[in-house]
């Protein structure tokens, strides 16, 4: 019996000692092998010079220095959002980046910041806008369901207290997930003249990390996000018509564009086409009808694709939203279009708009 216990204890002791020895060995090796010292990151030819700890990814190095590059996947190399131009010092393009880069981008030195390891001095080019992105702390001011699966969530900014964004831009909300914090992109739906608040329109995706988190928030819960991001620029010429086409929660950026636009140009012509399935999915229609009464140059068209329940009443457009676009818009007007919705909708609407004589560079879209 004692021999047995001694035997078991020796076994445990031997194994534990061996593991401890290996662990110490690895720690020492890591100290010498994975130590790259301090490296310098030069942004936009000397605009900002950061000194960061080498060995980490460029994305996390920039993040720790409060340069918030967009990233929806949290650095796993699966979203392709965190593109930066590396002028020197990033090493060769890695096989993990190739699926997200075009040949033109590879020639220009575009890389995914989450895949580039900081090992030496790096010279970067980052769009000016991204340098303006900040980390915001906010609390939930209001949340309401606008359809069975879409919630409107209003966040009051705490620190910093103001956000300067353009219509059509988005923020990245930090949501907890089993593998640490994950960032998910949501368009800002509140207009630009409400700088102390950010409103999001979020559809609940079953199993989705970001939407589940946002839908379960309660009043005064703290929310962290970064932003604003997005390249879209509204045409500043008041004679140019704006055409907004949204499907489902693609309403978010469009609502921002419309309210911001009428605040600045009360007489500018603007079309809103909204597509959804049934009457239960309709939201913001009353608000937009009120806006249309105040601004006669604003036209609202909601198109429902069905199927309809027998007792459902709908007097507006029926069928997919691109058919409504085709029916209402005249040809060859000076226009800028912003589309936000599922890919098939974007493709169909883009086709219709090009038939109406719009150039591809005037059609902006956000597929999700």
């Amino acid at each position, binding site marked *: 019996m004692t021999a047995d216990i001694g*035997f078991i204890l*020796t*076994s445990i002791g*031997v*194994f534990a000692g*061996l*593991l401890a020895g*290996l*662990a110490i*060995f*690895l720690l020492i*090796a*890591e100290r010498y*092998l*994975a130590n790259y010292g301090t490296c310098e990151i030069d942004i936009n030819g000397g605009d900002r010079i950061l000194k960061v700890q080498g060995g980490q990814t460029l994305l996390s190095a920039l993040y720790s220095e409060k340069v918030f590059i967009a990233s929806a996947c949290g650095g796993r190399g699966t979203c392709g959002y965190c593109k930066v131009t590396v002028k020197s010092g990033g*090493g*060769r393009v*890695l*096989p*993990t980046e190739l699926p997200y880069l075009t040949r033109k981008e590879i020639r220009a030195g575009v890389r995914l910041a989450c895949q580039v*390891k900081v090992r030496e001095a790096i010279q970067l080019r980052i769009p000016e806008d991204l340098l303006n992105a900040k980390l915001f702390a906010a609390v939930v001011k209001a949340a309401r369901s606008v359809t069975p699966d879409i919630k409107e969530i209003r966040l009051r900014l705490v620190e910093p207290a103001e956000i300067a964004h353009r219509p059509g831009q988005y923020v990245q909300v930090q949501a907890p997930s089993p593998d640490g914090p994950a960032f998910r992109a949501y368009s800002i739906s509140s207009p630009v003249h409400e700088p102390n608040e950010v409103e999001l329109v979020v559809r609940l995706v079953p199993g989705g990390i970001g939407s589940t988190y946002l839908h379960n928030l309660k009043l005064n819960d703290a929310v962290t996000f970064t932003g604003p991001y997005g390249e879209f620029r509204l045409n500043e010429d008041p004679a140019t018509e704006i055409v907004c086409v949204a499907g489902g929660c693609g309403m978010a950026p469009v609502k921002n564009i419309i309210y911001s636009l009428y605040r600045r140009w009360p007489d500018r012509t603007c079309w809103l086409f909204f597509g959804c399935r049934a009457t239960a999915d309709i939201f913001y229609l009353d608000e937009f009808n009120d806006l249309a009464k105040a601004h006669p140059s604003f036209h609202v068209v909601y198109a429902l694709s069905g199927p309809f329940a027998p007792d459902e009443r709908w007097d507006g457009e029926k069928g997919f939203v691109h058919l409504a676009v085709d029916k209402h818009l005249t040809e060859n007007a000076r226009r800028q279009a912003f589309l936000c919705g599922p890919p098939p909708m974007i493709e169909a609407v883009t086709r219709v708009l090009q038939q109406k004589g719009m150039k591809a560079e005037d059609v902006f879209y956000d597929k999700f």
Partner: protein
Amino acid sequence: MNDTSAFVILIAAIFTNNILLSNFLGMCSFLVCSRQLATALGLGAAVTFVMTCTTIINYAAYHHVLVPLKVHDHLYFIVFIAVIAAFVQLVEMIIERFSPALYHALGIFLPLITVNCAILGAALFMIIRKYSFAQSVGYGIGSGIGWSLAILLMAGLRQKLGYSNVPKPFEGVAIIMAITGVMAAAFMGFAGMVSIQ
């Protein structure tokens, strides 16, 4: 005790008793990482390095720690795996530092060297066949080179295969398995030269 010289064991481990082609150990990374010569060469070098070093450490751990304490019979398996896992971590750090492109090309198969059966197999054969220290080192190096030789041959063949007309049902892994079988048969031709057991 076995009195074959270490050099003979080394040669035998490469040709007559190739761990991949005669024991079919380490097949998973062999099948997946043999698409390109450069990747195959990198993985082959990593496996050879890990195999040589782990055989030496495992030999020392077995004969100088486990046997004197009389816990070798039931602990050697788990101890070998722990040593291999630690060593692969080290190799990972080295490759990441000195060749990031290779690090990304090998991808998940680099950490998976840990569970490469060829490496555990070499350590276990060393115990079963009662090799001395010199013989173990020879066997470790030989098995590593043998495994690399096999994956390099396969990578070369697969690059040629890209230009040939493979019948539809044989495309992909099927033709690779068939080629591996033919290669194994060819290597059997060496069997008469030296034999280790």
